[in-house]
């Protein structure tokens, strides 16, 4: 069996997925399981089997919503949310096909906002996400309703010195 991938993943983070005994608790309580192609414990087994491509190209790693139910329920305290983070980072580094491009686009746009101003401007985030994914009409009605209700801040908030913030943050990875 190819242990290289397993060791690579284990070396990236503080994940102790080796102790998983497939009790299925993680998937049983997962609110987003219906959108996953593999259950969380299956992903662990695939890592152990060296199925790098299948794991890094899976929907599961992008769908994980970070609610921590799996970690809370796991009898072995396997930190699945962190494992999913590690796998997403690897998928980006390796430049594999991302089966959930919308989710990645949202994360990227969010971080672009953060790096530009130090804070997120919700209206700008939504508009740029819609442009990036060409989904202008989805949720437009609710967006307008929220706007009319005065639920959005219309001018972006920022840190005191956005330029310095951006320079420092951008230079750090």
């Amino acid at each position, binding site marked *: 069996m190819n242990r290289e991938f397993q060791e690579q993943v284990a070396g990236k983070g503080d994940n102790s997925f080796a102790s998983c005994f497939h009790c299925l608790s993680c998937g049983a309580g997962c609110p987003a399981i219906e959108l996953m192609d593999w259950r969380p414990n299956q992903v662990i087994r695939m890592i152990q089997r060296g199925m790098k491509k299948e794991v890094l190209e899976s929907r599961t790693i992008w769908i994980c919503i970070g609610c921590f139910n799996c970690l*809370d329920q796991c009898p072995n305290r396997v930190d699945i949310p962190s494992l999913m983070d590690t796998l997403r980072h690897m998928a980006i580094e390796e430049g594999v096909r991302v089966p959930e491009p919308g989710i990645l686009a949202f994360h990227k746009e969010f*971080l672009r906002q953060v790096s530009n101003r130090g804070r997120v401007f*919700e209206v700008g985030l939504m508009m740029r996400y819609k442009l990036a994914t060409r989904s202008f009409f989805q949720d437009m009605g609710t967006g307008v309703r929220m706007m009319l*209700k005065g639920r959005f801040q219309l001018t972006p908030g920022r*840190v005191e010195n956005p330029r310095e913030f951006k320079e420092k943050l951008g230079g750090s*990875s």
Partner: protein
Amino acid sequence: MKAQTLRALESERVISFYPGCSLTSSAREMMESYLEVASFFGLRVQTLEDWNCCGSTPAHSIRGWWGLVLPARNLLLAESRGIEELMTLCPSCFVRLWDSREKLLADEQKNKRIQDLWGATVRGYTRPVFFLESLLSVASEKVETLAPGSFRGLRIAPYYGCLLSRQRWVTGLDGHSPRKALGDLLRRLEAQDLKWGLEEQCCGAGLAVTKPELSHRLVASIHRYARRAGANCLVVFCPLCHMNLELRAPGQEALPVLYVTELLAIAAGLPHAQHWLGRHLVDPKPLLNQLRIA
């Protein structure tokens, strides 16, 4: 006498506050109602100057290092001002601050890199705290200032959501202890505090924009279960839950969704309550008017 002086000092305690992005925009009702209620109870709240976004889900999801760096800057701002407790209203901001602090205190090398970037290491002097405990404790202390029986007829389904329902070692949050205090307070106001089944289910807010069909389904069942248990409103403790529970609410079946801070503001009879309530997507006013609550 001594106890009284101590209590007076306690009530003038300054609370240092990390707002976070949604509190300044889509969850302004939560922030404004919190600030007014806090001031009504005699708490002084000071916003952390020059705060930045905690990075939320996107940072740790796709740029792990930023997931530590962004919260760390806020911790350092607080440490440099001698702030021991940094209060958040958003459970997600809390978890990001807590997680970054834990990880940096456990990893000298990473903490050294934080120093190279922001000019200091995280020493651990500042601890993030969640607003609920301190707010409920002052509210129960000053419960005589809230009209007893003023919530008669209100049948509340408290919705704690994901992060407040975990064991403490998972998220650093203790969402369980405040529940009793909340229950006692609600009983005092003669509201019903219902057990209804989905109080700890995740609402799917993290995917609300990118996978709306998922949050539609999760949110619809939350409203439906609460209604079936006899609730006439949902009460929430998180800006993201609130947004999602209103935005994805199932049309005719939708229940009004109130922040716990709005609830306290109403109980205290604060004048701005009408203003916040007007910004809700599911209008709570017909219910409150019918019960002669606000």
